[in-house]
């Protein structure tokens, strides 16, 4: 069963002459153990869709369910809790708190007490895979863009969420790192049975995706390339 399910979502910003419909009747499902790629040009509504999927924005119409439970209409606290435990966000502008060292970024999660989080051994191996083990005592300001992005990925994975939503997670990475991160997301889907949704215009990630969707002017294309079916 789909862990994340989006049904007939429309998103309209503004009113009157400023009215823009960014998303048109979008339905989409993410299954555990699969990696879905949503591709589209800049301004096509990728980030907006991800924001709605993560429960940060209530869509103008339509519904979002997490593990079969309607999610978009829940109270804010409830959504916070679900987001903390079940959704790992990797943001386009890989924000990290500037005043926490890499180690403290994870310690903060411990302080908020999510239901679960990775053991220290699992975290160590994750940091190893991402090649950031020796950056643990540095502040984000002392890291390169790509290093920050990898820390942000590790940070999102740390509470062991069921769904991983990533917005352009490879924007600041070179080819080799893209392959590594792609493999990592792939591994998470397959080995840890996560539903991974990545929005990107980076075609290099298509190699690791199970499903590839096209988002064009707010319409999710019907002619999805489903590798598992082809």
């Amino acid at each position: 069963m789909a862990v994340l399910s989006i049904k007939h979502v429309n998103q309209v910003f503004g009113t009157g002459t400023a009215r823009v419909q960014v998303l048109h009747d979008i339905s989409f499902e993410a299954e555990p153990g699969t990696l879905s790629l949503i591709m589209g040009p800049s301004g096509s509504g990728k980030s907006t869709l991800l924001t709605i999927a993560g429960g940060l924005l209530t869509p103008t119409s339509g519904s979002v369910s997490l593990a079969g439970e309607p999610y978009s209409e829940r109270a804010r606290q409830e959504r916070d809790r679900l987001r903390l435990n079940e959704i790992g966000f990797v943001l386009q502008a890989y924000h990290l708190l500037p005043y926490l060292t890499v180690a403290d970024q994870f310690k903060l999660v411990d302080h908020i007490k999510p239901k679960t989080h990775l053991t220290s051994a699992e975290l160590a191996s994750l940091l190893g895979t991402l090649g950031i083990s020796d950056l643990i005592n540095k502040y984000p300001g002392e890291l390169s863009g790509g290093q920050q992005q990898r820390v942000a990925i590790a940070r999102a994975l740390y509470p062991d969420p069921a769904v991983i939503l990533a917005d352009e997670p490879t924007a600041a990475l070179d080819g080799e790192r893209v392959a590594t991160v792609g493999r990592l997301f792939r591994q998470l889907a397959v080995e840890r049975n996560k539903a991974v949704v990545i929005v990107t215009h980076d075609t290099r990630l298509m190699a690791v995706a199970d499903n590839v969707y096209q988002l064009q002017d707010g319409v999710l294309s019907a002619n999805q390339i489903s590798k598992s079916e082809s």
Partner: protein
Amino acid sequence: MFLALREIKKEKVRSGLIVAMIALIGYLIFILTGLALGLAQQNTDAYNSWGFQNVSLSDSANVDMRQSFMTKQQVGHLSKQEAVVGQTSVVAKAKGHANSVAVLVGTKANQFVAKSIQLTSGHRSKNQYQVVADEAFKQAGYELGDQIKLNDGQHRYTIVGFTKNAKMNVAPVLYGQLSTWHGLKSSMRGIYASAVVSKNANYRNHQSGVKTYSKQTFINKLPGYTAQTMTFELMIGFLMLISLIVIAVFLYILTLQKLPNYAVLRVQGVPSRILVGATISQSLLLAVGGLLIATVLTIATALAMPAAVPMAFDLPILGSVGFGLLLMSLLGGLVPVRSVLKVDPVSVIGG
């Protein structure tokens, strides 16, 4: 707390500036409070040291002991709880010293006022021409055995002892015998004393032309006393109000700068409670830091101040002032909470 501590650690300069600002405000208020209390004490120290509850004065004196004159009959019957005092302003003159204004208080050696005098050196007055002087005279260069003249009289009075904290209306006290006072008031016939003071809160003097007041009424009516204390209280009050606004504005700006960070935390599912807790505990930590520095500065200043500057520190008063400042910082920290609660996580997504 975790977030607050980490942020203070990383943003040392910014936190340091705010701590410094709070420290300076706290220091200013502490010193002003010390001065206010010091001045108030110089008005009342001697009276406080007697430990009386009620005082009877002639009713035409307008609650001013220096203007009060009572006959032996008006003094009436005295129990062991009562004492008579004669009080008058004098100008003390001595060779080699500038003239100084003082208050002469005549007491009877066997009554509680005379017994309440705590000598720091020398001995008590044994006759009409011996006086015990406040230490201000010592600081002005007088020594035991020095002789002074009072007003235009020809008699010489010998300083036979010194006592601490004997001040009235900001002037030092010379304690003599009741007869010393009689000697200075010899032109007024039939006058026996200025006042009767009693340790008994129920003491009333019912003689005609006499009124009895509580100690607090008497102190509040001291010339200039209420005006002075009120001036200081208002100053401190306004300072508190202004510091509230300044601290609140600083903390508000500090928080506004951090809103994007808070938005990220919201995306990650960090509950608002934690964000609000971080804001408030940060305000409190900075305020406590500032107040500690202010306390150290105040203690250093108090130690360095010359004895002539009237400054007094009272732990309960300073404690409540410090607590007031802490409360102000807390309020200042609460102002931006609304923005923290309203922070829009969507604002950091996209790009």
